[in-house]
């Protein structure tokens, strides 16, 4: 079982790539995935997680199949095979 993580904006520079595929086990949650991600891409993880709280830095978005993870169970949301996550740095949320 695996999931795809797409990276956006200038986080791509920190990750060195814009697409990461990682294996998951049955009932894995997003925080388990982030730990796995951190082992392969420590610079990326450092950019998005607050080291003191271990939580996502404010203003960073994680989307699961297009939905904000906070509308589900946050980083405790369970993953399934072929899920697609997107990690977004803060973007100009306004429009011109």
């Amino acid at each position, binding site marked *: 079982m695996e999931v795809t993580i797409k990276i*956006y*904006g200038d986080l791509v520079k920190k990750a060195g790539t814009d697409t990461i595929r990682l294996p998951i086990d049955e009932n894995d949650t997003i925080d388990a995935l982030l730990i796995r991600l951190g082992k392969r891409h420590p610079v990326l993880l450092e950019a998005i997680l607050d080291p003191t709280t271990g939580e996502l830095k404010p*203003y960073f978005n994680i989307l699961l199949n*297009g939905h904000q993870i906070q*509308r589900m169970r946050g980083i405790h949301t369970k993953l399934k095979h072929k899920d697609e996550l997107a990690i977004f740095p803060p*973007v*100009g*949320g*306004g*429009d011109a």
Partner: protein
Amino acid sequence: MGQILRVDLSRKKHHVEPLPKDLARNYLGGLGFAARILFDELKPKIDPLGPENELVVATGPITGTVWPTSGRFAVAAKSPLTDVWGEAHCGGFFGPMLKFAGYDALIIQGRSENPVYLWIDDASVEIRRAKDLWGRNTAETINMIRDARGDPQIEVLSIGKAGENLVRFACIVNNYYDAAGRAGLGAVMGAKNLKAIAVRGTHGVKVSNEEEFLKLAAEGYDRVFKEERLDGLKYYGTSPPLIDMKRLVGDLPTKNHRTLTFKEAEKFGCKAVERYFVKSRACFACPIRCKKIHKIPSGKEGLIMKAPEYESTCAFGPNCGSNDYRAILEANTLCDLFGMDTMSAGTVVAWLMECYEKGIVTKKNCDGLEMNWGNSGAIVALMGKIANREGIGDLLAEGVYRAAQKLGRGSMKYAMHVKKMEMDLNDGRGHRSLGLTQATSPRGSCHMRSLVVVDQGFAFQKVAAERYGKDKLPEICDPYSEKHKGLAVKDCEDVYAIRDSLAMCWYACGWPPTFWINDFAAAAAAATGIKEFGNVKEMYLIAGRICNLRRAFNLREGVGANGDTLPERILKEPIPDGPSKGQVVNLKAMLRDYYELRKWPNGAPSRKTLVDLGLKDVAEELKRLGRI
């Protein structure tokens, strides 16, 4: 400073008035000035394209200083597109130069018999013949005026063919591509036979509390410099990061708002357009430098054009079902040259495409153009047709509402507008508060007057909690919930009214909130020396005054709660696919909250609301007209 230049094109006269102290004290500047002047000087029900309409160009107290993102100005008149309040805001360099010439605001009245341009050179003001300029595009006009005056430093506000031909959504351009874009203000200039306003000034803008102002300005620059969260804008511009995000979360208007996902939009995202990047450019004294110049492969040398902003990209791209970036660049550039609003132009083309799909118009009706979704060649071709009012362009130039009225055959169903203003490229079904913003915006569908970002995703919970209270979470951050949106919209509308009066740029306070109303208050107080401005409560009072004045202007024209609607599609058609599948907008619930907070029973300010804001005279006039 402290001067207003009034020009009467009918009598070919001008005179300079001192800036009334009351106006400065109670309305701050920019948008505030425009609102008060136009409410006082315009009568209801005048023809926006007639000589009785007035065009106001107003700067704010910090325009022309090095306060970050302050190089902006407001333009306003009665709109020929909507027949109600018309305002547009603009960057570039014209606003500061007007200040340097010694004027806080410009009021253009009447109508010239022949094409003219206004030439302001410090204290010298001339109305000059524009025979050779008429028919030229905006870039040519700017260059020709500079050559004719022998001075390459002049700043010019110009209309193009679209304004001359009274295209109802024609715009005004300065600095080649900075536009006071919406509400058809270019047609107001065209109707007055005013081709351009050229200005140059050698004076300076003084501030009252120099030390404090400079300290705050330097600190402001530092903030922007260090702000990582503005990196998207600094590196990619306004469009690619938003395209990426909106595509993923299901908030990207596609095919005339039929749905909100467009897979091919990846072609306009950060990764795809990075390769076209040549450089960044900025408006006056702006540290964000969001303007990008792109070079796309074409022939041997490639093609260099200014990159479009998000709204323009979506208008000519996904909303027309097109994945052709080059066509977007071309259509955007043509709109700059012809002086036309990209959002209205794109939306009216999308309407035509839907009508074509439904068989309401045929290829013959469209001058032989096959208006299939995604036909980017047709999109580009239509820009010229609209600006010149040729063939089908003459119908489209009327704006989507009048075009649908003329065409009939059920086409109004597909006309995406609010108060006759074509919809901006946002959708309440993907971003709920935006539905309320579009419905209540005084100039018709527009996101800029009260765009709420805290519900564009859960990333903004902290800010939402700070601004509105923890108890409003999680709904206030939920893009699909109507709850608490009235509060967020009302608050943003107030803050942005101050922003547009100072005048500052949306990107200074949109996202992230690098500056917010407390910063505006500090800037206003340090610049003007008016201590009361430093009090945030006072800022909110002025904001309320301005918002109610705009509302009163519209009520005088007969538009109130009856105009606070959204197209049927947004209210009744659930999104068919993607993350926003099934969503519709329950506008009533949000409107109710918004009216309550504004103290507008049934959508009209009560007498008490107006009196409390110091608008007793407005209350009396509205009462007399039976509007309240």
